Structures are given as structure tokens and as C-alpha cells.
């Protein structure tokens, strides 16, 4: 019995020695582009995972070749060298009107922000050095004019992702116009001068734009050495804030003291709770017919008062609105009023749906 136990211990030790070599994990090397590890796929192992080694030698001929039209339909990115810029043109003045109609509701007049969504204009590049190390200090201003390195990013993003609630609804002429308006309001030069109302942005003069913060980023990812520059950047941990010293005793830390929470952020949904109880019963009744359409089309602006639109649940604001009478309110919603575009910017909504939505919003604000 004793002998037997002895043997099994010896066996365990042997297994442990082997395991640290290669039985339980493939080789790890610190040679990744990001300064981290890569793992070989060797002897049926990938790190700690078993793998089917047959797979790595295969070339699987799946899928089909896209047609020329399919490629044209999806390959719509716009690059800094002008690749992908569409035909078309638009003036600053046209852009002004389109911006008011489609963009101001979220980004504020002239892109000045203030309603919770990104501020697009204003500020100075020198503000990027601002560090709010004490309360009341100015923040860095990260706008198109002070921060964005390429104008191609702007026109590409407007075409693919804006307006927020109805992306891809603008024509090529319209995206040139809105881009021209935003460049002008950021005082960014086209053809060597800041554009006036009548000036037109097109595929050709687009390439004369040099964004003010073009050189504000590192490592340099352009050109033949772009990827190697990234590798070099991550090779030095000091560049990205990594520490390599593991101090265990009497560690010094620049007179660090305890900083406690000043004003606690408590605005969380649902509220904090770790209780294990049965949930409160929901009130019964059918869902209001306008609820879903409201959430899809209107909640973006009407959920909170941050946008200046009467927010659902705000009795005072809605009492004021409803003084105009149901028919007038519905009519305003259909035609648009103030900063609100017709039908909240979704022409697909029927008048009957708008009426349901207004009824839902007002009846939930009593």
C-alpha cells in the first residue's frame, strides 16, 4: 500500500513537469502588434484549448463572388484620399436649410450643441490641452473643427449614419451641402478660403480641405510604415500608460491620499437593489396603440426635457401644450412646429398614427 502511494506521487510530479512544457498549452510569445501575447496552433493545441489541426491546412471554397452591382451598392466608404467621394455638389446656403430641418434638433443651432448630443462647432485647438484637474475648469473642446483629422470622415458619416433617426435618407447633393455648412461654421477652408453662403462644395474642391487637427494623433498610421509605427508604439509600455514594476512592500505613490465621492451619481435605471423578493405587480390593461410608434419615432426628443421638447410625464409642459386643443396639437405634429420637423422627421407615419401618438403622450402626462 505504502509503495503504491509512493508511485502515484512520483507519477504526479512527472505529469506536472511535463505540463509546464507543452502538454496542456501551446507556446505563448510576446510578439503581438499590440504589445501582448500570441499563441501558436501546434500539436492539436491553441493555448489551453484543444483544436482540430486538420482545419489549419484547409482552403475552403465557400460563398460566391459578388456582382459588380453588389460591390457598388455596399462599397460606399469615403477615404481621406478621396476614394468613394460621390458625384454631386451642395452650397453652404442649401446646407444651412437642410441642417435646420434635419440636424439642429439634436446638435443645436449652427452645431453649437447644448441639447445632449455631440457639439459639432466651436472651441479652439489649444483647448485640447485643457485638463480639468479641479472643479470649474474648462473642458477640451472636441468638435469637427478642433478635433476631427479628416473631412472624409464627416461626409462619409453623414451619408451612412445621419440623420440619426433616419440614416441614409439624404441625397449626395444634400450630404455635400450639409458638409459645406458644417465646414463653414467651423471656419475650415475650402479652396483656400472659408466658404460663404453661395460657395459650393463638390468632389473636386473637397480634396483641398486640410482639417486643423490633422496632425493631432499618434502613432502615425499612414503610409507604408503605418502598421509598424503601431507596433513600435505598443513596444514601449510607457507610451500607453502601462506599469512593469510589481512593488510588494513600502510602495511609494506621490503622496496619494483618499479621494471620496463628492456628489454621487445616483441616476441609474432601474434603481439600485440587491433584494431577492417578488417583483411588484405591473398595472394591468392593454398597451396604448400610440406607445410603440412614440418610442420608435418621438422618444429621442420627447423622453427628457434636454431637447427643449415637452417631455412625456411633464404635467406642466403638457398642460400648456394641450391648451391649444387636440386638433391643433395633432396638426402641429403633422406639419412641424418650432424645432420639430413634420411628423417628427418620419414621413412614413400616417396622420392617424400621429393622432394616436399625441394621445399617448398627452394621456401619460396628466
Amino acid at each position, binding site marked *: 500500500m505504502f509503495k503504491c502511494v509512493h508511485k502515484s506521487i512520483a507519477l504526479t510530479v512527472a505529469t506536472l513537469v511535463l505540463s509546464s512544457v507543452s502538454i496542456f498549452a501551446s507556446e505563448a510569445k510576446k510578439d503581438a502588434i499590440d504589445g501582448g501575447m500570441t499563441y501558436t496552433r501546434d500539436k492539436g493545441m491553441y493555448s489551453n484549448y484543444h483544436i482540430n489541426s486538420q482545419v489549419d491546412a484547409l482552403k475552403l471554397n465557400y460563398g460566391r463572388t459578388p456582382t459588380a452591382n453588389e460591390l457598388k451598392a455596399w462599397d460606399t466608404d469615403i477615404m481621406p484620399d478621396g476614394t468613394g467621394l460621390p458625384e454631386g455638389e451642395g452650397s453652404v446656403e442649401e446646407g444651412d436649410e437642410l441642417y435646420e430641418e434635419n440636424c439642429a434638433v439634436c446638435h443645436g443651432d449652427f452645431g453649437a450643441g447644448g441639447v445632449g448630443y455631440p457639439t459639432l462647432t466651436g472651441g479652439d485647438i489649444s483647448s485640447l490641452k485643457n*485638463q480639468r484637474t479641479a472643479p470649474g475648469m474648462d473642458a477640451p473642446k472636441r468638435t469637427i473643427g478642433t478635433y476631427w483629422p479628416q473631412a472624409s470622415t464627416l461626409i462619409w458619416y453623414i451619408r451612412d449614419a445621419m440623420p440619426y433617426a433616419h440614416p441614409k435618407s439624404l441625397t449626395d447633393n444634400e450630404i455635400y451641402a450639409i458638409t459645406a455648412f458644417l465646414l463653414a461654421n467651423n471656419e475650415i477652408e475650402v479652396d483656400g478660403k472659408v466658404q460663404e453662403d453661395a460657395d459650393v462644395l463638390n468632389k473636386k474642391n473637397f480634396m483641398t480641405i486640410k482639417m486643423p487637427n490633422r496632425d493631432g494623433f499618434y502613432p502615425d498610421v499612414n503610409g507604408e510604415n503605418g502598421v509598424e509605427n503601431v507596433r513600435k508604439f505598443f513596444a514601449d509600455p510607457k507610451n500607453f500608460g502601462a506599469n512593469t514594476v510589481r512593488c510588494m512592500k513600502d510602495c511609494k505613490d506621490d503622496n496619494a491620499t483618499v479621494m471620496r465621492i463628492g456628489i454621487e451619481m445616483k441616476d441609474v435605471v432601474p434603481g439600485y437593489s440587491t433584494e431577492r423578493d417578488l417583483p411588484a405587480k405591473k398595472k394591468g390593461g392593454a398597451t396604448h396603440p400610440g406607445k410603440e410608434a412614440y418610442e420608435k419615432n418621438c422618444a429621442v426628443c420627447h423622453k427628457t426635457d434636454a431637447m427643449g421638447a415637452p417631455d412625456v410625464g411633464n404635467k406642466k409642459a403638457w398642460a400648456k401644450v394641450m391648451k391649444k386643443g387636440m386638433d391643433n396639437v395633432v396638426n402641429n405634429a403633422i406639419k412641424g412646429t418650432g424645432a420639430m420637423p413634420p411628423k417628427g422627421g418620419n414621413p412614413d407615419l400616417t396622420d392617424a398614427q400621429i393622432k394616436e401618438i399625441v394621445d399617448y403622450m398627452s394621456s401619460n402626462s396628466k
Partner: protein
Amino acid sequence: MNKMTKTSSTDMNIMVEQSVEMTSRRDFFRKAAVYSASAVVASNVLSPVELLAADDENIIHHQKWGTTLGDELNKNPYGVPSPYEHNNVRRTTSLLSSAGDMHAAVSLTPLHEQQGIITPNGLFFTRTHNGVAHIDPNKYRLMIHGLVEKPIVLTLDDIKKYPSESVIHFLECPSNGAAEWKGPQFNSVQFVKGMMSCTEWTGVRLKTVLADLGVDPKAKWMLAEGQDGSEMSRTVPTEKAMDDAMLVYAMNGEALRAEQGYPVRLLLPGWEANLCVKWLKRLEFGTEPWYCKEETSKYTTLTASGKAIQHFYPLEVNSIITSPCPEKNWEFLEDGDMVEIQGLAWSGQGKIKAVDLSFDGGKNWVEASLKGLVLPKAWTRFSYMHKFKEGETLLLSSRAMDEAGYVQPTVNQEKKIIGVEGVYHRNSICTWEIMKNGEVNNVQMRS
């Protein structure tokens, strides 16, 4: 017998309701024993034995669930958590959104309830830029083109035809903890570090798909673009695509959740979750980076020099103590109790090598044990047994080290290099202040 049992369960329900009014457990038992002298004594399990004040009501009496027929087993064809777990949910805050709009916002994983290293699919943190897209899998197409000899279009069935692999990786938004560069703001582990989750992903190695396409060696970069309203896109070095990148269509054994990019998402293990493009539409290979909106105007780390770090891919070594934490504190402990300190460590640059704990705000450290699986670019659990002393205050911190040799920086060390306006990639040491009564608060050690 049957009749008696029924009576007892009804009585018990009345008593449970009344117990809510009572102030302490001990008080409840005492009162319950007196109250039940007639009605309950007759119906308790041990009847006619006289009850003692120390007897636990929950043991002495039959429970409702033991005396009634349960639900039909397939009442919920897709299972749901126990109704008692309804507070274990993702949470949002208007601070991490645009004006309270929850289409471009983030929800955070309840790390205080997280067990093990696998996040349940319903609790996986979610960040979207234009709401959650719902793609019809039958109409789903992925295009791979650009500087390749053979561009292709794949359907979902095509992608599933490739040999699959399953790997466990965390996914973290580089904004995790972004609200706290200037100091602590949230008293909650969920909001301090919950912009991350960890799951077992299943899909195909991107390298396996690309093997047949003839990617031009000059194509150093790959564009990944999504199909949602924001067409979320990013530029990735081809080298990563050829290393451990995957096209994933499943998480924790089932199809991706819509919030996570159903039906197909790009997975770049260890890198910014934002690079792991959801609702993947196309991959294009080229010689120059694309300058996408989410790699210029956002997801760039502005430093005190006024210049910003771009293409900041890996999530650096990091850790957080999840027990105790502000949500799950030590108020329930008695003086002298042994208690387990546990938490999660992770690194986008390799495996976790070690985790140290400090009880004095970072002056002295002891090594904790790692437990469970230790895998590359995956959550790793750590554990340390501590003797709780009532009346003692502690500044409890964890500090992880990874296989690549990187150690989590202190708040001051990180501040020195990045400043306080970087927004992204905050991985400095987190500290909980344990108060005399066992309460736990989020603090920072900094000058």
C-alpha cells in the same frame, strides 16, 4: 392529513405577511412562537411538540412550495430566471447616454451578482450607436472584398459551414470607468467596471475564411463595417485578422443576442469591444486606414499634450474586487468571521499571471490565489481569505499582472502619462474603503 397540511400552509402565509412588519428575525421568532401557540402548534411538522423561541419558522413549518403542485415544466419554453432574481439586471444611466436617449447609450453588467467567469447572455453589457438592429438571418449577407484575389459573399449558412471553434473571451468597452478619470462618482461596482462581460464565443477563425481568398500582402489594413443604422466601422491591422480574429455567431451555446450583433459579429480577442463590429456587413482589405468616425472623433485617447492616441487596440491588464463591493458590503459579518475576498482580473494582452491585494491603500501588497480557469484574454477569478475585524477601516485594492509582464498602474501613474481627459482605456487600480460597520465605498488613491 391532506386537509391539515393545507391549513398549515395558509396559516404560514398569513404569518409571513405579518413578519414584514416585525423588526428583527429574533423578535419575529419569539412573537411567532407565542402567536402560533394554538393555530400553528396543531399544524407544525413536529406536532404536538412544543416550539422553542430558537426554532426557525422555515424549518418547523411546511412551505408553500412543498405542499402545492409546481408549474408545468415547460411553462417557459425559453427559460427565465427565478422571479426572486428580478434585481439582477443590466442598468443604464443618463450620464452615459445622449440626453437620456437609450439608442446611443450603454447598459452595464451587474458584476456584484456575477458568479464564475461566464456572463449570462441576458446580462451581457450592451453599447449601441443607433439602437439594437434586428437582422433577418435569411437576408443576412457578409461581403469580403478589396485587395483580395477572390472577393466573396457569404450567407449565414455559409459561415456556419466552416469548422467552428469555441473560445472564452471577455469583451470590454474602452470607456469602462470613463466617468471616474477625475475622481470617484458612482458608489457601485456595476457602474465603476460593468462595461464588460465574458462569454464562450463560437464561430469560425477569420483566417480559415481568408485562406481561400488570396489577401494581397500589401493589404496591411482591414475595414470592418456594421449593418445597423450607424454603420459602425473600424480599421483593423490585417495581422490581427490573421491571428486570433473570429466571425462569431453564438455565445454561451446559443445564437448571438440581437444586442450583441445577431447574427454575426467580428471578434478581436482582447481588443476594444467597439472594434468587434456587430451586425457585420463587410470586410474590405486595403493599403491605408479608413479614418472611420469611431476611430477619430471618438475612441481616441486625448492626452495632456493636446495630442491623442489613436488605434489604441488592446484593453490593458485590469482587475476589480466584486466581493465586497458597495452593492454587496460586509455589514452582515460578525467580528472574527473569515470571509472570502474575490474579484475578476483580465488583460487583452495575455493571460493573468498574478493578482495582489492591498489593505492599506497600496503601500503593501499580498498575493491572492487565482481560481478556476486561467485563459488568454478571459476573465480570471482571484480569491483571498480575510479575517473581518469589526471597527477596522480598510483601503482594499486589487492589482493584476499579466503574462506580458504589465502591471496595473496606480491612479497617479496613469494620470502622469494620460492626464484626466483621455476618456478611454482607464485601467488604474480601484480601491474600496471598508468602513467600521462593514459598509463599502468607492474611493481613489491619488494626489
